[in-house]
């Protein structure tokens, strides 16, 4: 384990871009403008120029509001979507644009946990079948007995009684199903887990159970997590580093402690203040103007400009670049760069 800390980044995203075409067919692209027919393709800019590095053993949380591109990042990294631009490197190897066949080897190292445990388990497979399948697929030389032992061991480690293996998913509660989904990800002994809102569909008391399980798995197996969530209190607890996305662009990237103690980007500040705290006895947040603009026609300047209380002419015209701050965090904001926020 020790020498791993010096090894290069386990995951590296370089200028990652993803655009979704809205007008797919030829006829859809034809529009009437000034009494003339023109061809025009609209695109949703889901992820714009995102660069980051992850080290082994860390838990990087991606936060943001709906439509900010956080799930798209997860899907790009998992190879479920192909990027429109940029590169993804895993363990020093470039993995974007590979075919499904080429990705099989990688699947053993990198597993994904989804939000909805009702949709991610096949209702017609028993838990035993669902858990055996990935082991069998990735370890062709294992005997049946060895596979059964493996499944048994993983079920125990996530706190699901192995004697329930013959049951079907509908016989389990939401929390138990999410444990089983985690168990399935762990059966192939991965080193990297992508978790897309894994606890959002669960009740508070169950959230704590599942979060504890993921923390345990991290310590015992030395896992690296890419954790997608909108819940900032979970981030504070679970994440070692946080990246805040807004309209597909990075606003702020820093270690968790720094982000919560000294948020810098105006959007991060607003986001943190909007989380209702137990100690508050009245709403107590930074008000933002308007709502999130559509990602179809992105503003040329800062994506947050339309809602920001500190925006000026430069913000409107020029997109801020992510810049490293003295305390190590990375912030993309002209106002922070020009030091005109604290007045």
């Amino acid at each position, binding site marked *: 384990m020790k020498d791993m800390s010096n090894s290069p980044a386990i995951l590296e995203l370089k200028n990652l871009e993803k655009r979704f075409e809205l007008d797919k067919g030829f006829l859809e692209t034809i529009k009437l403008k000034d009494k003339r027919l023109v061809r025009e393709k609209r695109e949703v800019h889901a992820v714009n120029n995102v660069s980051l590095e992850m080290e082994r053993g860390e838990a990087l949380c991606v936060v943001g509001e709906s439509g900010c591109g956080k799930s798209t990042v997860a899907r790009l990294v998992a190879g479920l979507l192909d990027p429109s631009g940029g590169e993804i490197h895993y363990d020093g190897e470039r993995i974007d644009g590979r075919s499904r066949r080429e990705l099989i080897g990688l699947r053993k190292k990198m597993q994904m946990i989804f939000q909805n445990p009702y949709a991610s388990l096949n209702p017609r497979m028993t838990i035993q079948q669902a858990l055996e399948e990935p082991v069998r697929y990735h370890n062709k030389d294992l005997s049946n007995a060895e596979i059964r032992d493996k499944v048994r061991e993983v079920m125990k480690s996530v706190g699901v009684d192995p004697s329930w293996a013959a049951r079907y998913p509908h016989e389990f509660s939401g929390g138990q199903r999410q444990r089983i989904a985690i168990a399935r990800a762990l059966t192939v002994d991965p080193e990297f887990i992508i978790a897309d809102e894994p606890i959002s569909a669960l009740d508070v008391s169950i959230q704590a159970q599942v979060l504890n399980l993921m923390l345990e798995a991290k310590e015992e197996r030395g896992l690296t997590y890419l954790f997608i969530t909108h819940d900032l209190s979970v981030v504070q*607890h679970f994440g070692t580093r946080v990246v805040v996305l807004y309209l597909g662009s990075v606003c702020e990237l820093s270690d968790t402690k720094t982000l919560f103690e000294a948020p810098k980007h105006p959007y991060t500040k607003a986001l943190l203040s909007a*989380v209702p705290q137990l100690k508050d006895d009245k709403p107590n947040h930074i008000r933002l103007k308007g709502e999130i603009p559509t990602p179809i026609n992105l503003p040329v300047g800062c994506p947050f400009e339309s809602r920001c209380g500190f925006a000026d002419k430069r913000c409107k015209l020029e997109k801020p670049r992510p810049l490293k701050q003295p305390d190590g965090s990375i912030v993309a904001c002209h106002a922070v760069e020009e030091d005109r926020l604290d007045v």
Partner: protein
Amino acid sequence: MSMLSVRDLTVKFAMRDQNVTALDNISFDLGEGERLGIVGESGAGKSITGFALMNLLSRPGYIDNGSILFEGEDIVQKSESQMRKIRGDRIAMIFQDPMVTLNPVLTIGQQMIETLMAHRKLSKAEAEQIAIVKLREVYIPSPQERLRQYPHELSGGMRQRIIIAIALLLDPDLIIADEPTTALDVTIQADIMELLLELCQSNKVGLILITHDLGVVSQMAERTLVMYAGRIIESGPTREIINDPQHPYTQGLINALPQQTLPGHKLKQIPGSMPSLTTIPEGCPFSPRCQYATDKCRRIRPEIVKYGPAEVACHEVNRLHETQSEEQSA
């Protein structure tokens, strides 16, 4: 006298082989202009309570027993046509998903004017004027134009503001809001909650806020009910409940929040999960998950007793308090 007084309300669902109890002997009061939070996890009976108060339960659900006195009249005894006069007029309800509440094929204006004209003798022009005033109250920019738009043309936050405007159209005495911001993003949620609070305070409207989020309750409600498996297990002033919860479940719920634990440490989880309505155990429904449960808890159902400023349904609340204060001093 309180505006709303619920006594021994029991709601059951008729199933093929048995009747399941969804709400079990619920009693609470709400004063004029008071804000009450109802918290609990899914399946606790929070939403059923909201529906029962509006007399909106539909088969197989029915009110088995109890009374709901609203301004001195029993809602349980009202006919459907009498209820229609109360709903929307004196009690309004806000639901979780604004897209389901708004009719997608009618414009915002049609929906608002229709509501007004169904309850009041108004001309269309007068109704439109009131609608515009209400839209302004919820900070909707250019309200005249909005009246001609359809729900799908507006954003989620905007739709929920319009729902609030519709709820306020007839100046109700009570608003029941069932998870009004759960479908929205945090920054929008904060705006909507602040707006709701402001409007309730300035118009002296009572509010019953149904939510799973203790942080929201803390900001919004003066008093709070905590529900578990169809029962109220603790009630009292919100600050007391959050700062000094008495019932082991309320304590567990608050302690399970990530904010209550140092980052990276194990969260204090409650073992197991809430029983389904068909498998509610004998005695205290929380006893199988409770670390303090005794034999008595497993056999006899606890009654609600007064404990300081709060009311708690727990046999062991006295002992609990002693052991916990010992732990703290030790």
